[in-house]
């Protein structure tokens, strides 16, 4: 085996874990996103710590996935606090091939890295989650359907786009202007008031348990946290 695993982390514990569990592979470490971007050519597999000193690992994965030179690379995210299905789904949606809370089980981590590298060192295909599942809330981006506890939600096209945008940006504070730009897009006649009305409608349709996760941050925008 002569494949390279690039480990991007400022945490010596994460780097040591990668070296110890990936014996037989060449493991190179980078202490920051900046140092990694400077040297990496898109080869091998990159294990990226969610909490880098200069950038979040989730943002770094999204950036790499968006660039032609690195779009097909194998990217594994680790860290980022306690595991939750919601956190994992967001990592996958940002483009991670795998996600492990830290520390992962060493044998499982090694097996998964070898399995990914065994595909020939490139990503199999552009994969997005077929369905987001957060407890009783299930959202299928392709079929454009959303269900809570088995009952289909009746959403307009715009409300569905809004829900998807919030799911993909969980935990991020989204301003009204950002929503107008990213979700309403061409419809420039809409204003902040239209956003508020539509969010209110989306909350109602999501029901009490999920609607309450879509919080207003007074004077700033909205945040969706599951």
């Amino acid at each position: 085996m002569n494949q390279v695993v690039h480990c991007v982390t400022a945490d010596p514990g994460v780097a040591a874990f990668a070296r110890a569990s990936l014996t037989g592979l060449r493991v190179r470490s980078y202490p920051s996103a900046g140092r990694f971007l400077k040297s990496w050519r898109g080869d091998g597999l990159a294990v990226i710590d969610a909490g880098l000193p200069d950038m979040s690992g989730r943002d770094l994965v999204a950036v790499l996935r968006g660039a032609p030179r690195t779009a097909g690379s194998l990217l594994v995210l680790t860290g980022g606090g306690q595991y939750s299905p919601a956190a994992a789904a967001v990592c996958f949606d940002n483009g991670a091939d795998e996600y492990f809370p830290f520390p992962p089980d060493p044998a499982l981590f090694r097996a998964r890295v070898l399995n990914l590298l065994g595909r020939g060192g490139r990503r199999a295909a552009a994969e997005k989650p077929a369905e987001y599942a957060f407890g009783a809330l299930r959202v299928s981006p392709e079929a454009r359907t959303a269900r809570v506890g088995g009952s289909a939600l009746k959403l307009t096209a715009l409300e569905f786009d809004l829900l998807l945008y919030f799911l993909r940006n969980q935990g991020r504070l989204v301003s009204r202007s950002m929503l107008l730009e990213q979700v309403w897009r061409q419809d420039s006649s809409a204003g902040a008031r239209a956003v508020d009305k539509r969010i209110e409608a989306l909350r109602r349709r999501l029901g009490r348990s999920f609607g309450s996760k879509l919080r207003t941050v007074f004077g700033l925008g909205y945040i969706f946290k599951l």
Partner: protein
Amino acid sequence: MKPRPKVLVVDDEPDYLRIAARIAAKAGCAVVTAPTALEGVALASAEKPDMILLDVGLPDISGFEAARRIRRTPALAGVPIIFFTVRSEVDMVSEGLKLGAAGYVLKPFDPDELLRRIKAAVFPA
């Protein structure tokens, strides 16, 4: 009493200017703001902030060029700068980090993450 650290926020988008300013204030900082890069450069020189939150896609000159100009002032040569932007091309991120940025944050951002980064920059351990 030690004066509060001062943060300069530069963004042409009023919503994000307000959001970033609010988070910097929550971090315990005094905040000054500018809606354009050139005003930001001038304000940096006048106010000598302890850190700068700088949008990359500004209408007059880019945030990167603003950072270069700010850093030419000897008193600001080492000021921590966090770039924030909606655009996420890998070359842009590399350029920003090569400029010695303390951080690079994509919009929309996690307010807790930005808060942590501001605190790490103005109150280093």
